[in-house]
C-alpha cells in the first residue's frame, strides 16, 4: 500500500510515455510530472533561455526542408515542441540570416531543440526506473 502511494505521489502511475511527451512539448514538464522540481526548473530555464536568446539574436526558425541541411535544422527545431509551434504562429525569428549573430541564433534554436529531446528522454528513463 505504502509503495503504491509512493508511486502515485511520484507520478509513476498512468501512461508510461506521458513524461516523455510532456517533456518534449514543454521543456522540463516531464521532470515536473515526476516531482523532480529542481531538475525540471534547471532544464526548463536552460532550454527556454537558449531558445529565447536564439530568437533575440534573430536566428532562423526553419519552416520547410529544401535540402538535407535544412531538413536537419528542421528536425532540431521540432525538438522544441510547443515552443517551435508558438514561434511559427507568432512569426518569431528571421526568414533570412543577414548577420553573424543571427547565424549563431539559428544554432541556439536548433541545439535548444536537441537538448529538449535529451531532457525528455531523461524524464522517460526516470519514469521507467532506468535512472534514479
Amino acid at each position, binding site marked *: 500500500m505504502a509503495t503504491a502511494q509512493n508511486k502515485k505521489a511520484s507520478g509513476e502511475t498512468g501512461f508510461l510515455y506521458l513524461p516523455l511527451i510532456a517533456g518534449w512539448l514543454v521543456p522540463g514538464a516531464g521532470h515536473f510530472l515526476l516531482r523532480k522540481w529542481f531538475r525540471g526548473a534547471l*532544464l526548463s530555464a*536552460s532550454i527556454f533561455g537558449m531558445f529565447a536568446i536564439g530568437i533575440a*539574436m534573430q536566428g532562423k526558425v526553419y519552416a520547410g526542408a529544401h535540402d538535407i541541411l535544412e531538413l536537419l535544422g528542421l528536425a532540431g527545431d521540432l525538438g522544441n515542441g510547443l515552443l517551435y509551434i508558438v514561434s511559427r504562429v507568432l512569426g518569431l525569428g528571421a526568414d533570412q540570416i543577414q548577420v553573424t549573430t543571427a547565424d549563431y541564433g539559428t544554432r541556439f534554436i536548433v541545439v535548444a531543440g536537441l537538448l529538449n529531446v*535529451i531532457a525528455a*528522454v531523461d524524464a522517460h528513463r526516470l519514469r521507467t526506473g532506468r535512472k*534514479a
Partner: protein
Amino acid sequence: MFKPSHFAAVVLFALFASMVFGITQRETPRRMVHYGLYCFVLFVGSVVVLSWLMFLIAR
C-alpha cells in the same frame, strides 16, 4: 536585437548545454554538478585553444 560578442555567445551556449548534460547524463546531484562543470570547461577551453590555433595558422 541581441548582439553578444563571439565569446559571450560561446559562454552562454556552454552554460546552457552543460547544465542539461550534467542533469541528464549523471545520477546523483554531486556527480551532476561535477559533470556539468567538466563539460563547461571543455566547451570553453576547446574554443579558446582552437581560436588560438586558427589565429596562428592565419598569420
